[in-house]
Structure formats: C-alpha cells, structure tokens
C-alpha cells in the first residue's frame, strides 16, 4: 500500500470548495507528488453539501479510499458527512468564529485546529481568501512546503494581477503562522515529502477534449449537461488555436445534427453529453450510422434513468450505447478505463470513425470525468498520435468509384464493407446521403436485393474491424490465477489497487479490463481457463456481465454498485473475496 495521505475540504456549494481543492491538488502535483481527486457534489449552485477530496502519495494512486487525515470543514455538516472516514489523529481545520461553527464539537482523539479563517483573510486583503488561509494551515499541519502552494496560487490567480497573487500568498502565510503560534504542541503526525518528478494533473473530460484536438477534431457541438460539460469548456478557447470551432447548440438534438453536418462537410466532428442527452440524440444516431458518417459521440454516464442523480456515478448506459436506435446499426463502443485512456481512446475513436465510416460511442463515466489524476506528461505523448482518415477519394481517384454515367458511389458494395468517401467540394463526387435505404449512389431504394446488400455491407465493417484492429482487454494481476475478474470503465484503477488488499489476504486474481465494448474481444478461452469469473460494474443489472455471458455461454458472478458512489479499493477487495468464497467454493490461496 502506498503511504498515502488524504485531505478534503467541504462546505456548501458556492463556498469555493472546488477551486480551493484544485489549488491544493495542483500544489501537491507541482511538488512531485501523485494525486487522485474526487468530488462529492449535489445538483445545485449554492447551498447543499459539497466536498473535494485529494488523495496523494509519492507513488501512483488510482482510486479513492475511506480515510481522511486532514479535513477543512467550512460547515458542521462537513464533519458529520465525513465522520466514518475520520480517525484518531485526523486533523480538523475550521473557523470557530463562524456562527454556524461556534458550537461544533471535534470528536475525541482528533486534532482540533480552530483557525479564524475569515478574520485572517480580511487581514490579508479580503474575506474571500478564507479558504486559502485554511490551505496555509493545512500546509503547516502536514509539513508541506508552502512555496508549492505559492506556485499553485500564481497559476490560479496570475490572470487577475500580481496584487491578487500576493494577497493570496499572504493569506496562506497567516494561516500557517496561526497554527505555528497557537498550536505549537498539536500532534501533527503528517509529512508530505516532495520529489523532483514533473506531473500533469487533469480529469477525464479534459483528457477527452485534449485527445480530440490531438486527433485533428475541428468541429464540436454540444449542450451543457453534467458531467460532460467540461469537455465543451475545455475545447472552447483552445480548439480555435488549431483551426476548430465550438458551438453551444440549442439542445442535444441540434448538437448531434450540427456535428453530423460538420462531419458530412468532412471535418472531424464530435459531440459530448450524458445519458439524457443520448436519449435525445438516438434518432439522429440512426441517420449517422446509415449514412455512414464518421462521428464521435461521448457519453459521460451518470446515474439514471430519467434525470436520475446528475452528480453521481453509474455505468448504466451501456445497453443504450450498444443497442439504442431502431433497426440494426453497426457502431463502435469504446470505454476508456483511466483519465490517460480518455485521451488515447478519443484519438482512436476518431480513427475508427473515419476508417470504418461509423458513429463511435465513447463511454466515459462520472467517476473518471470529474476525477483529476496526475500523470507523467509523456503519458500524453503527442508524437505517438496517428491520424488515419480512411478511404477518402480525391479528384484523381474518384473515377474508380463512379457509375458509367459518372455518378459517385458513396455506398459502393465492397468486400471489406467500407466505401469510398468524397468530401463536399470534390469535383465529380456530388451525392445524396439519406437515412432511407439506398443504393450504391445513396439514392432511395426498396429493392429487396439492394437492401440486403447494403445491410450486409454495413455489418461487414464489424468483421473487417475485428480482423484489422486489436480489441484486447488490458490485463492486471496474476495471469495464472484461477479467479478471473472482468470489468470496464473507471473501475480499473480501483481494481488494480484492490489487488494489493487481495494479495495481503493471499487471494490471487487475474483482472481483465475491457476498453472495447463493441466490437470486443472474445473471452471464451479466458473464461474456460478460469474457475470463477466475476464481472464488476457500476450498475444494478450487470449489463456488461450479460454481454459476456452471451458471448461465452458461461455464467458469471456479478458485483454491482449503483448507490451513486464509485467503488473503493478496500471495500471492493472484501466483496471480491466474499463473492469468490460463495457457493462453498474454495478460494485459491
């Protein structure tokens, strides 16, 4: 287990929780420490409990844990909400002068740091900086060099002028000094070492946006929705530097249709939304697929159905992405497994979309999208990005794909199922695209023979992709173990950490994390080699478990979590042990 440290700030939405947490996380990252953040937030702008948690270690951290070492509590509820995670020796920083905090009782055994946050902030130049005072106090409590915080404050407030930066630095110093002077004997048993490593800190939504730009995406249309909005926020203001454009559409229907238009014009195009938005986009999804338009559609899943729990984790949209839309439609469904993979799978999504002229769903989830993680910058090696635009024809090659009378054949029946593609403006390439069944030229037809040929042609792309692409799962743990754990999406990091707990208990497992939902690898051999197979996912019914059972004709065990919270490593390890031990089977030791 890495010697990790857990910090959180909690209060009401509107208290600046998010930005304060981010400043601290960034300071840790700049000090060469690994960081994994998580957010506990409600669907409201002001009021209601919200928290930002930071887990940090000098080693890689991949998930959240049930422990808090230092808690900045801006409201009494912050303490109540986190009581289970606090332990003997936990430090609680709060402002006893604040009316609501004046009679708060710090539980026995914990370190009580009552700091006049607001008053000190006013001394530094404004009450608004009280959270920064708390950060200074936290630095003192953890022996963390406050200069790293300075650098993070400069990054955060640099645009607002040097004076603001200096005031904030001062606020942090006042918090630090107050703890030094007033709690000289407090037992602050924490030490946040720094390293010389350089890390970048980003979340899944940002990684998806960055991947899109890297892949040459030029056109993005979207409608704000939690937790996908950050993709649009990231792209806006950045994609323009690379010749691209972001449109905030009037609704999700418009968003996907705008993106479809961009894609038909030949631009690499994308839209991102969450489950309710996918519902609205589904009709056009059928047109995208039938007209064989390359398009990347990101679904950052949250708890459903309907409005569900907009700020909570779930992986409940898998069936919709796999089967949504009337009729039968070939598509790709990719599920990134880490923030880093959000970047790479986005790049891959664009290549698959254009190589196979199909829509590609990118199935991200809230836990990954809003979670910031540190990476070595080389994890996003731009030199390793490749662009493959597939079968695009130009004025010189278009003749090979025309009828005798000169009509272009955008839906030419080919052996691999992939037809030529002509961008508008290409001489001799003018053609019709339609959601109606069509002939090779894209003209409506109800001819029975042509109908079958076109359906088969579109479906053949899936077979071609299986031959040409590598859809292997990512593998962790003991390759020879008899117990096989299968998962997808953001659970990978938690499972990898759970391995250490399982190892402590001498439980050997092999983990397959599946980033390709469709087309996907055939796991029959792996399943047959295993004594027990357990599928871990954040939904109630086991949507991925159903799929692999169908593929392999083998029953699997299931671990499902659908309370809105992502898995935690220790809890998951315990549940795996219990599941493997069920039915009286011996757990391999």
């Amino acid at each position: 287990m890495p010697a990790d440290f857990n910090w959180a700030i909690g209060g009401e939405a509107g208290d600046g929780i998010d930005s304060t947490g981010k400043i601290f996380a960034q300071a840790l990252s700049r000090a060469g420490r690994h960081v994994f953040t998580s957010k506990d937030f409600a669907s409201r702008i002001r009021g209601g409990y919200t928290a930002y948690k930071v887990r940090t270690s000098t080693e890689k951290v991949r998930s959240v844990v049930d422990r808090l070492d230092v808690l900045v509590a801006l409201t009494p509820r912050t303490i109540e909400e986190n009581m289970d995670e606090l332990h003997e020796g936990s430090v609680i920083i709060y402002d006893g002068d604040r009316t609501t905090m004046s009679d708060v009782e710090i539980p026995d055994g914990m370190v009580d740091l009552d700091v006049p946050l607001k008053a000190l902030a006013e001394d530094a130049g404004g009450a608004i900086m009280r959270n920064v005072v708390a950060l200074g106090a936290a630095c003192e409590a953890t022996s963390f060099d406050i200069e790293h915080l300075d650098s993070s404050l400069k990054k955060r407030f640099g645009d607002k002028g040097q004076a603001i930066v200096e005031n904030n630095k001062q606020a942090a110093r006042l918090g630090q000094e107050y703890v030094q002077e007033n709690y000289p004997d407090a037992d602050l048993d924490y030490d946040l070492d720094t390293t010389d490593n350089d890390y970048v800190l980003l979340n899944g939504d940002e990684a998806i946006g960055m991947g899109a730009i890297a892949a040459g995406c030029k056109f993005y249309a979207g409608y704000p929705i939690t937790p996908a909005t950050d993709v649009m926020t990231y792209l806006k203001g950045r994609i323009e530097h690379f010749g691209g454009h972001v449109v905030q559409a009037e609704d999700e229907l418009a968003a996907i249709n705008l993106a479809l238009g961009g894609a038909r014009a030949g631009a690499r195009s994308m839209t991102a939304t969450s489950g309710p938005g996918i519902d609205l986009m589904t009709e056009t999804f059928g047109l995208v697929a039938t007209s064989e338009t390359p398009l990347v559609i990101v679904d950052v899943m949250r708890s459903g159905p309907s409005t569900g729990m907009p700020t909570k984790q779930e992986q409940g949209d898998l069936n919709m992405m796999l089967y949504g839309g009337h009729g039968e439609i070939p598509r790709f469904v990719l599920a990134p497994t880490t923030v880093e993979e959000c970047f790479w799978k986005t790049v891959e999504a664009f290549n698959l979309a254009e190589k196979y002229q199909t829509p590609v769903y990118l199935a991200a989830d809230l836990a990954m999208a809003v979670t910031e993680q540190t990476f070595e910058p080389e994890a996003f090696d731009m030199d390793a990005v490749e662009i493959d635009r597939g079968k695009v024809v130009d004025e010189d090659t278009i003749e090979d794909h025309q009828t005798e009378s000169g009509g272009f054949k955008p839906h030419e029946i080919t052996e691999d199922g992939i037809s030529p593609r002509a961008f508008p403006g290409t001489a001799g390439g003018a053609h019709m695209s339609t959601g109606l069944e069509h002939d090779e030229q894209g003209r409506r037809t109800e001819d029975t023979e042509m109908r079958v040929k076109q359906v088969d042609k579109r479906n053949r792309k899936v077979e071609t992709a299986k031959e040409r692409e590598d859809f292997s799962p990512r593998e962790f743990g003991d390759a020879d173990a008899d117990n096989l754990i299968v998962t997808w999406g953001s659970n990978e990091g938690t499972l990898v950490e759970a391995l250490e707990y399982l190892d402590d208990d001498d439980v050997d497992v092999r983990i397959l994390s599946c980033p390709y939902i469709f087309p996907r690898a055939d796991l029959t051999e792996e399943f047959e080699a295993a004594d027990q197979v357990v599928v871990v996912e954040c939904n109630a019914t086991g949507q991925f478990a159903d799929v692999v059972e169908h593929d392999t004709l083998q029953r699997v065990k299931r671990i499902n979590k659908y309370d809105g919270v992502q898995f935690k490593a220790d809890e998951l390890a315990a549940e795996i042990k219990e599941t493997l031990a069920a039915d009286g089977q011996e757990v391999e030791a």
Partner: protein
Amino acid sequence: MSSQVRFTDFKSDKQPTWCPGCGDFGTMNGMMKALAETGNDPDNTFVVAGIGCSGKIGTYMHSYAIHGVHGRALPVGAGVKMANPDLEVMVAGGDGDGYSIGAGHFVHAVRRNVDMSYVVMDNRIYGLTKGQASPTSREDFETSTTPEGPQQPPVNPLALALASGATFIAQSFSSDALRHQEIVQKAIEHDGFGFVNVFSPCVTFNDVDTYDYFRDSLVDLAETDYDPTDREAAKEKVLDADKEYMGVLYQDEDSVPYEETHGLDSNMSEIDHDGAPEGAMDLVREFY
C-alpha cells in the same frame, strides 16, 4: 465559378414521385435555377432536406446533399456551413418539418444567422401522411385528425422569424416561376440566414389553399413602394391578418453572418498533419 453551369446540372436522374400538379415541382425548379444563376455548381453546393414530400427534394436534385431526420435539417445545414464556409448551403423542408417538430431549431437558426438559405415548402397540410392539419393550417381547416378544424391559430412563420431577429424574410409562390426564382436568389445572395416561405400548394389534400387562392390573394410587394429594409414596416406586414404578401418582407443590409462574427474561414475537412497538430504538447504542459 464556371459560367457553363445550367440549372439542369442540378437535376438528378430520379423522377419525382410528387403528385401531378404538386407545388413542389415549381419550388424545386426555382431553387435549381437560383443556384445556377448565382454561380454555384453541384460540387460546391450542399443541400439539406427535411422529411416529408418537401424532403424528397434532395433526391431529385444533384449536389452534395443529406436527407435529415424530421425537423432537424437546419442544424445539419449550419454544421456543414461552419465546417466548410466555401460551400453554398441550402436547406429545404416543409411546414411540418420547419414550424412544428423543428420550430425550436428554426428560432435558433434565425438567431444564429449562418450564411445559408432556407426554403420552406408551405402547403398548410401534412401531405405524405395523407392529409392531417399542419402548424400553418387554418383554424377551421377540416382534416382527418381535426374534423372540426385545429381550433387554434396557425403559426405565423414570418412573424416568428422577425421576432427572433431574422436578417432576411421573404415569401414566394411556387407557381410564379420568375418571382419565385428571383426571391430565392436574393436569399442566397443575402449575407446571413435567408429565409423564404414558399406557398407550394398540395393539390391532393388541401382544397382551400389552392393555386387559385394564392393567385387571387397574394400581394406582390414588388408592385408597391414597399421598403424591405424598414423593420417597422416589416412588423406591420408580417402581422397583417387581412393580407398575404409575396416578395422580400425584410432584409437587414448590414447583416453579418455567423461565420464572420466567429472567424470561420477555413475548410475544416483538411487536416495537414499525420499526427497531433503542431504545438499540441503545449496542451499537456498547461496541466502542470
């Protein structure tokens, strides 16, 4: 653009399946002539069609085209134009497509003011589903689904456009071939969203809004001293309950299209790098 382009170059080899006498024949001919006359050719033209009888137009014309889903043609057209401003984009649809299922998109397309033209074939009925009330059907127009008439006022597309900030509003009549072509041409030439509501009679299901009705009742603004740049005058005209007009009802001559306000001037289909674009590593460094 090549001066040899003829309007017939915009014709596909598919024979229309519209009913004999349908107004859409004239509407489409005028669109093709207007496109040719404004110097476009099929390879630089993108036509987006909606659903219904009007939506078939993309099949009967020859150009780059897409037949969208019901009511959503406008955002598709906007996406095409934003991604490649060099293309001439024309969106065509019907009254159901544009003012019922697509009414929200209509309002926002008008606001957005992308430089494209939007031609609505308004026959005041749903033809392809065999005769139900449409959003522009008269209040007392009896149909299979409204035996006593819709009993609600029709949508006023011209007023809706004006209220939404339209920079070009026109109305034409498919059977007046020359005027229709001229009006669509003006919409194409307009710098921004050129909206044309075309009376395109349904000879099979609508026995009220007939060729004769429009021929007798339409007031041609070209024959009056009407000034289409006068927004106040346009307000009066679009809200006039007693008369219907043909011609350009409003044009903002200072209209600046979306592409210009948003600095869109490149063809986004081009990607001039095999890997990540130059400077992409800066995107990573930002996260230090």
